[in-house]
């Protein structure tokens, strides 16, 4: 992300590259694109509504999914099935679904962006998913109620709705402001 300066920052390259003055650039790259990842285990993950949230496939039952979330700041967590049954593993602490959610979020968004969104203090080193989960678990976060499942579900529907829209051939001049970048998250 662009908040950090330092050699690890993939977006730092723009300060020295073809775009010399980032602040005065119309095409400044602000959010790195999602990195490709396998979606079978965690088909949906997002940083929204003040939570890291998503949908995790059940390891045992292919027809079942879990809706899992961690709140930014408090790390209050919740996990339940799509039928709103509480997850047996998420009593008192993070279940495996939540751990998988964090791991896949790291893959998709990059460690820095996830840690920052969750307001997890990682002291500017490149955190790994296990370390972050351990650090959050150590604060003994409260169990959130599963009322988060409904908004996650509606966010997922919104997300999937993008797949249902047809491509179109009328020009979108505004997309000129969104150049691609080879630097991934």
């Amino acid at each position, binding site marked *: *992300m*662009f*908040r950090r300066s330092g050699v690890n920052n993939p977006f730092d390259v723009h300060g*020295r*590259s*073809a*775009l*010399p*003055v*980032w*602040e*005065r*650039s*119309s*095409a*400044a*790259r*602000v*959010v790195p*694109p*999602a*990195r*490709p*990842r*396998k*979606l*079978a285990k965690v*088909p*949906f993950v997002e*940083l*929204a*509504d*003040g939570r890291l949230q998503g949908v995790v*496939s059940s390891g045992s039952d292919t027809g079942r*999914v879990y809706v899992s979330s961690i709140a930014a700041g408090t790390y209050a967590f919740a996990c339940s099935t*799509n039928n709103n049954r509480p997850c047996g593993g998420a009593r008192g602490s993070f279940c495996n679904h939540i751990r998988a959610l964090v791991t896949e979020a790291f893959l998709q968004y990059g460690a820095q*962006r996830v840690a920052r969104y969750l307001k997890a203090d990682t002291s500017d080193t490149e955190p790994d998913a296990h370390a972050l989960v351990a650090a959050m678990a150590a604060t003994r976060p409260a169990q959130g109620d599963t009322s988060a499942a409904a908004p996650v579900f509606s966010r997922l*529907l919104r*997300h*999937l709705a*993008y*797949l249902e*829209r047809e*491509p*179109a*051939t*009328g*020009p*979108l*001049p*505004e*997309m*000129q*402001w*969104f*150049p*691609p*970048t*080879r*630097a991934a998250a």
Partner: protein
Amino acid sequence: MRTDLLGDPIDGLDEALAAVDAFDDALVTGLLRPQPAQTDGLAALAAALGGTPLAALVAEAADKAAAGAAGEDHFVALAAGRTALLGSVHDALTARVREATGRPAAEEPAQPVDGEEPVANVLSAARAWLCDLARAGWRGIDHELVGGAAPVVSAMLPEPRLRRQATLLDGFSAELAASCPGATLERVPVRRWADLWSRALLLTLPGAARTPAGSTATGRLLPLGVDVQEHATAVQAQVHAVFEPADGTPPRLVRAAVSAPKPDTVVGAGLWQLLRPRMSLLAAVSEGRAMELDAMPVTAEGDLVWDDARARAGEPAEPFATARVALAAAGDPVTAPLDRHPARLAVPVLLEGYAAEREDDGPLTFAVAGHRLAVDTDRVPAAGPLTPEAIAASGACLGLLRWDAGEFLLQPLAVETTVRKKTVAVHAGAWAGGTTDKAGVRAEKAATDAVAVLRERAGKLLRS
């Protein structure tokens, strides 16, 4: 091409940009309770527009905003003033590019046609959100404020007439959301966000997104290359091409675009898979073919509104051959008034006889005729065979001339390199229509799997 002209100063450019920057800086901390530096910025914008038709309107808006009392109409007036200034920058840059390429301009576009207006409610909701943003400033954004865009975007997405507004607001708000809270941002993309804000605001006005009246194109289409644009939930591929009308009128440059909304996990080769079925031109690009058009709709800005039924595959046509034979005489399209902005500049050019230079980790530049042209290799899509290394080793480059952050840039669309004494062309959009390249096939497979999982999970989740 006279690349030497691209480095020369342009009269009035610095002054216009200084006024834009002064206004943009005022948006950083927001206009709820403006400080003296901000009121100066507002005054600078108004002063720069003195003597223009917008002068009185912008001066009044600047006064109101300086008093922390700007209403929606005042914000719209400020956005219009800023847009007009950048329009003049666009015109000056376009004139310079025309001198450099020596190409003729096409005719002025006609006025937009009256059309059915989209639902006003959602546009007023968008306008209200954008005005709240301006009051809070980029330093004042938080999740609650930025989240206000989500219902607006959701309401716009199903409405085809609001695609432009929806796509812009979706990309802009996602960027803001990823940057919350604004108070702790290390740096702010000041011009970019002011660009997106003012454009989004103007697009909430009735008629702003209307396209100028068009005509139809019949003749031969010779592709030059593909430009890809993407944000988390949208992608557009734009083919730049030379169009040779069948009626013998002079050739001209045209574009053909295809775009689609997408989940953020569809990336790389997955983008081509989304777009490919809607535009046969992408396959023609990959195969290196021309296409024959029969009464294809085309806007006055030179944008073909693609319809597969009005195109058929033509003879093989190599883009470098097209560029060498036809590019110099092809007329450049004219940009519609509201679309005049430096970010819109994307002018096909052919560059040869340059020396590729790179100092340490610095940017790649092409030195030609005593001038150094920066090369924006970052715009080359990852799902394609063209790499920064191939560009640095190239002897000829077909690209788009752009302008950003005070200088001209070259975005490569294709290069020629020499491999074992043979000239080989590598195209950024080579995988657009599909590929047999090993890495490409792997990327296609991964993308197919990703979409399949999404659809399968969606099915299960929605049934239960």
